[in-house]
């Protein structure tokens, strides 16, 4: 039963990854091809709750592929991650999005 649930979560995660991938590329293509650039780059520190190394790899990879965020650095005790974001419109929305991604990865990797 537990294994079955995990397989369902993994398939759901792959679909989520592909949707985020296409969305990120359409966002960035729209931003480049329109004449006025609406970007406001900034740095953001977010707390990390993932324990396993494989989960951290998945998390930084997915964070680099989602629209408007790029993983830059991870602190030594693996508790805080520095993220560069491209659309600095509303910090709370971005933090909610990242927390949602983190919950999905914790469901898979733990």
């Amino acid at each position, binding site marked *: 039963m537990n294994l079955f649930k995990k397989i369902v979560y993994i398939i759901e995660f792959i679909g989520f990854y592909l949707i985020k*991938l296409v969305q*990120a*590329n359409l966002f*960035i*293509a729209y931003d*480049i*091809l329109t004449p006025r*650039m609406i*970007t406001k*780059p900034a740095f953001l520190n977010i707390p990390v709750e993932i324990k396993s190394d494989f989960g951290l790899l998945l998390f*930084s*990879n997915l964070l*680099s*592929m989602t629209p*408007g965020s*790029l*993983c*830059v*650095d991870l602190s030594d005790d693996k508790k805080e991650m520095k993220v*560069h974001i*491209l659309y600095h419109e509303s910090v709370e929305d971005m933090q909610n999005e990242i927390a949602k991604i983190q919950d999905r990865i914790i469901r898979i990797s733990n």
Partner: protein
Amino acid sequence: MWWIYTFILAGSLFILIASIGLIRFKDIYSRMHVTTKASSFGIMLILIGVSLYLNIGEVYLKAFFVIIFVYLTAPLAAHSIAKSNRDRS
């Protein structure tokens, strides 16, 4: 047959978008956003189109491995460049 050409054309268009973004953005981290996302997406579309055109079993396998490799290493390269740039400045 037309979807194969659509894949190839869309992939080269995304690589062109990546290079235009490389010249339009202002600072180095924004340029890294473009060259991580758009160029690996474009090369994935070109690989899918070419392997559908050639239609051989081992070509599908090689295309799958190249896509996995590119998607594992493009964020790593961006991470390494960002870290070296941040340590020097």
